[in-house]
Each structure stands twice: as C-alpha cells, then as structure tokens.
C-alpha cells in the first residue's frame, strides 16, 4: 500500500510536469516543494511555470486522481455486490441520471445564470441522487433489494435515460451540442478547483464506509445466502453499499462526465495482481485507479497538444482492448 501511494505521487508529479508546455521534472519538484513546504527558492521567470503547474495542471491531476479512485472503488464494490464481473459504477443507472441532469442544464443554458460554473455539476449530482432513489424504490420488494432486480432496474433506467438524452441531443442547437457531447465523452478539463474539496470529502467518507464493509463484501461475493450463513446482515450491507457507491459515483460523474472503463477494468487489474480480498482490493484499486486516470488524462492532454481529446476516449480506447485481453485470458484459464 505504501509502495502504491509512492507510485501515485510519482505519477502525479510526472503528469504535472508534462503538457503542452513541458516543464522539467526537477523544476516541477521545486515548484511543488516551494508551494507546499515553503522550502527552496525557484529562480526568476518561474512565475509563469509556477502558475501553469499550480493553477492549471495540479488541480486537474488531483481531479483525475479523485475521479479514478472513486470509479474504481465503486466498481470493485459493485462487482462483489452484484456477483457480476462486468458490473461497473454506471451499471445501476446513476451515471445516466447524472447525464440527463447535466444535459438538461447545458441545453437550457443554466450555466449563464447565477449558478455559474456550479450549475452543470449541481444538476448532474441532483440527477444522480434522484436516480438512486428511483432505482432503490423500484427494486425494493418487502424491505429487501434483490441484487438481480437492482441490476435489471439499473439497466432499464439507463436505457430509458439514454433515450431521453438522444431526444435532447436531437433537438439541441449546434453550439450547445458540442458541450453536451464533450460532457458525455467525459473529461477533466472543466473541473473547477473549488469543487475538488467537496469531491474529496465525498470520496473519503464514501470510501471509508465501503472499506468498513470489505470483509462482508468478501462473503457477499460468494452469494447472499453464504454471506448470511456466515453472519453478514446481507440487506443492510447491500443497502449501505448501494447508497455509498452511488454517492461517490454521482459526485465524480457530475464534474467529469462519463469516463468509461476505469471502474470496470481497474478492479479486475487489481484483483489479478493482488487477489480478491476486499480489505486490500478497495484501497489498492483506489490508488491504482487514480494512477490510471492521471496517466490517461496526461495522454489526452499531450498526444495532440495543444489541442485535447476527451479523457473518456482515451480510457475507452485503451480499456476495451485490455478488457478483451482479460476475457480471453480468463477463458483460456478455464474460468468463465
């Protein structure tokens, strides 16, 4: 875990130094050190570099880390909860709810009102929360939420919201269409640094709660009956996990849009390296997910510099082949 944290810091610093304007690693270190510890003294003419690093890149790298970590934690938990290796944070429809909120907000131009830059994330988060309640109450039968029902409800709600989004796109004027598409593809460009604190708190709280369920999730992945036989209060764990994965997913999706494949592939990658024990899997996939998304975003920023491609495109382009590889490998190993 310490090793992983070290890796994450290294990747972070490297990502900060890379970009349209390349700043040497040593200088990046110096600037960061000076900023956080007040030590050292960067030479003259560094005001510009310092500004690029501290005001532009650092918040973005932090955003990447938070989003990647949140998606990966949510993915790990949902894969165990639903006993479905193809589950990802979006499978329960939370993201599509957020998307509807965000798209509505963009189309009606609420960003120009007093809400300003908070408008889209706010609308998206509201959409996510409403979807959470919606799915939960549809799937609930006599005080229980059967995993299969929840899964199906999520899939259906996603399909329904996708249709709404398609409809909205089809009636949207061209200049707003660009914003809508860019949001849907997922990117970290517009994450306001003020929002980072809020997301961080959500992530910390949510992950802590989910981590406290780690041992129960190990048992839940063997099936709800087995878990119950071994002393897990299954319904309580399911509800808690459902609510907190939704909250952290909703929180990050509302600022970053739909970044795919991280929440699906990172948990698998982590399991392949360190095994399936959730007491280790949850923190490890948070760190690994953070790293993966920082890397993906660095690629998104730099391959076609100075113009950018959405990071969601990078994760999908890299993630899909990786996942195919995983599937093939598992089949060859005789595991379905």
């Amino acid at each position, binding site marked *: 875990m310490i090793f992983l944290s070290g890796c994450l810091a290294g990747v972070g610093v490297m990502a900060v130094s890379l970009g349209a304007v390349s700043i040497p690693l040593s200088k990046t270190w110096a600037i960061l050190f000076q900023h956080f510890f007040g030590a050292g003294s960067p030479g003259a003419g560094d005001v510009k570099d310092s500004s690029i690093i501290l005001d532009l890149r650092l918040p973005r790298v932090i955003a990447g880390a938070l989003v990647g970590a949140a998606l990966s934690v949510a993915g790990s938990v949902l894969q165990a909860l639903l*006993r479905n290796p193809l589950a990802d944070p979006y499978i329960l429809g939370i993201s599509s709810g957020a998307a509807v909120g965000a798209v509505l907000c963009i189309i009606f131009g609420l960003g120009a009102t007093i809400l300003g830059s908070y408008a889209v994330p706010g609308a998206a988060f509201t959409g996510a929360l409403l979807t959470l309640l919606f799915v939960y109450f549809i799937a609930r039968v006599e005080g229980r939420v059967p995993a299969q029902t929840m899964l199906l409800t999520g899939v259906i709600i996603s399909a329904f919201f996708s249709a709404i989004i398609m409809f909205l796109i089809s009636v949207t004027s061209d200049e707003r269409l660009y914003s809508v598409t860019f949001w849907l593809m997922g990117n970290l460009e517009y994450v306001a640094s003020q929002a980072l604190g809020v997301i961080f708190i959500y992530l910390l709280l949510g992950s802590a709660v989910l981590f406290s369920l780690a*041992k129960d999730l190990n048992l839940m*992945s*063997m099936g709800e009956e087995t878990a119950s036989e*071994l*002393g897990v*209060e299954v319904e309580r764990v399911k509800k808690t996990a459902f609510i907190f994965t939704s909250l952290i997913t909703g929180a990050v999706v509302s600022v970053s849009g739909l970044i795919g494949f991280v929440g699906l592939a990172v948990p698998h990658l982590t399991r392949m390296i360190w095994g*399936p024990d959730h007491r280790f899997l949850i923190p490890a996939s948070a760190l690994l997910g953070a790293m993966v998304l920082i890397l993906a975003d660095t690629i998104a920023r730099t391959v076609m510099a100075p113009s950018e491609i959405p990071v969601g495109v990078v994760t999908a382009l890299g993630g899909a082949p990786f996942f195919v590889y995983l599937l093939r490998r598992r089949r060859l190993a005789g595991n379905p």
Partner: protein
Amino acid sequence: MPAILRMESVCFQYPGREVFHDLTFGLEEGEILGLIGPNSSGKTTLLKLMDGLLNPKQGKIFLEGKDLRKVSRREVARKIAVVPQEMEAPFSFTAGEIVLMGRAPYMGRFGWEKQRDLKIAREGMALTDIAHLEKRPFAELSQGEKQRVLIARALAQEPRVMLLDEPTSHLDINHQVEINELIRSLNVEKNLTVMNISHDLNLAAEYSHRIVLLSSGSIYAMGTPSMVITEENIRRVYETMVMVEKNPVSGAPRVTPLAKAKMEKAGLQKTIHIICGEGSGADSARRLLLRGYRVSLGVLNIGDSDEKFGKALGLTMALEEPFSPISERAYRENQGLIEKADLIIVERFLVGYGNLANLKAAIEALKKGKRVVVLENDLQYDFTKGEARGCYQWLQEGGAEFITDHSLILKEVEKVKS
C-alpha cells in the same frame, strides 16, 4: 435431551406453493439426525428455515430457547454452520481464504485474521484432508474437493450445530465414508449436533441416531433408522420397490432398490415360470419383468434370497417352510404354476435331496408338452449321489432346450407363441 433447535407449528410457502403446514420438530442436542425424503419434499427449505435464511410465515423457530428471528446473524453463525450442496466463487479466492471466511463471525469489522483464526482454519483443513489445497484457487478444484473445503469452512465456524445439505453427494466412496466418520467423531468429541440431508438411504441409516422421513412437506416418519427405513415407508414415499435387510456388519437397515415391476403393462401376455433357488432366478426374472412378461417362481424355501426378491416384487410363488424339503403340497402348487406358464426355465442351482423335486417337476412339465429351457449345470457338487445328473439326462433326452448363458433366455422366450 433438550432441543437445541426447535420448530414450532411452522408454516412456510413460496409464492404459489405451500411447502410446510404446521410443522413441529426439534433437533436434539448431541444427536446426528438424518433428513431424508424424495426430491422437492422440502428438505433444503427446512434446512434454510432452521438457519434463519428463510422466515416462517407462521410459527416460530427457537435456537437454544431464543426466537431465531431475534438473534443476530453473527450470533447464529457462531452457533450454526451450514454446508451447502455447492457454492460458486466468482473471484479467484484460494481454498485457504474460503476456509478462513468461516472465522468471519468471530472477527471485528476492520480486523485481520489472528494467529488463532489461522490455527483453527488449518485444523479444519487437516481434518477434511485438504491441507495441500490451501493455496489453490477454489474455482479450479474438483466438486469433491470443493465440498471438503466447504466442510472445513463450517468447522472453522466452531459451531454447536452443523446443517449439511447432501455433503457427500459429489464424493467418492472413500471420502464419503471419511466425511461421515469425521462427522461422527466431532459428534462424539465436541458434542456437535448434526442434521444431515441425504439421498443415500444406506449412509443415512448407518450414521444417523434418528431419521426424519419427509414427504411433500410433512413428517411421514421419525425415529430410529430401523423404524423409519422400512420397505413399506420407502415404497409409499419414494414410490419405489426396495428390499430392506439388516446390514450384517452394523445392524443398520440396508436398502436395495429393485427394478420396478411393470406387470400391469404385461403387453406380451406371456407367463414364464422359473424354477430356481439361492438367488439364481432373480436375474432372469428381473429381465423378463422389465420386458413386461409375467413371472412366477417355485418351489422356494421361505428366507431364500430368491424368495425375498419375489416377495418384494409381489410375484406369485410356490413356497416351502424354511430349510425343509419340498413337500407334496408345495410340489402340487408348483405344478399349478407350471400349468399356467407358457415357458419353464430351470435355473442353475445346487441340487440336493431337499429340492430334487424341482427337477422332477420340470420333467413332468416336459412330459405334458411344455417348453422347458434349462441352463446347463455341470453339477460340480451333486448332493444326490447322481440322481440330479439323471434328471438332467432325462430333460436332455426329453427335448428340453439347453442354453449356456442367461443372455439367451429372452431369445428363447420370444420363440414361444402365447
């Protein structure tokens, strides 16, 4: 003995299907209870109710006198361990990790397994003979190995009660016996109370103190193995013909299934009389019955294995008292059966003065123009000082069909016009 786990007037239904109506029964402390019954008689449902995985619609279940619904799952898991029929693990947990999960009800929310937990898990693995599988992924194990892992996990729970759902159904005979012996020794040494669902009536009879026979959601019979496992009960509940004897070694009842007699479907309308003894006739009789022929046997001494077979299948037989020579009465009875038969088969049996009359009856039949098929008999042990040999010569000269092998019997039977 007090009941450690007790159901009181429990009703339970799945949507649209009532399983139990007013079921009352208790698992007594320190016993090994065998739960038997045909498919869909409610055995697994009963097990799930007893562990609190399902809640009764009416009635209550008590664990050590406490209402099971008011006991936390954690507490239940420390008292009751369940060994399911099978379990799938979607992720690559190792066998050792799965066994350690049995310690979950003793661990804190954030805790890792302590030395003591590891020790208990390893003990369970040693007892179930899977110590060498510790690092192997559970998903890659064979069914039998998986089942032993699940039993080891149940042992790691250090339960007072163990509920097993056909724990040995995937195991070879060696591990079947080993697991049952293990359960017996835990029962003796740790006073573990056991309920064991089984489709293997013989293993259930062998290892259970008490047996409950379930039939479509109610208790058909309950008591010691020899009280419950009777030909009558099994025939009624399983709708199968069986023979129940005492296992000569253990004294427990031993069940042998018999092929279902389809005499009512006697489409071929032929009657075959088999002269036999000491089990020589059962083989042919079974084959002929399965083909839909009517079969009669004679003369047999009561207690002879052919007689037991015929009795279990309800065949018509000419009988003689145990160990007695064939009397005039029995001889005539036999002749009556021969009279009605389309074909007589003389099986290969030992001949002594007691049953010499059976060969004479065959000669008699031949004289009356009956078709007689004789299995060649080298009479290695002739207890009649040559008289039996004489009879066989008679049969041969009189035109009986001699065959060397049972497989030829059906052919002979088909030749006969009814």
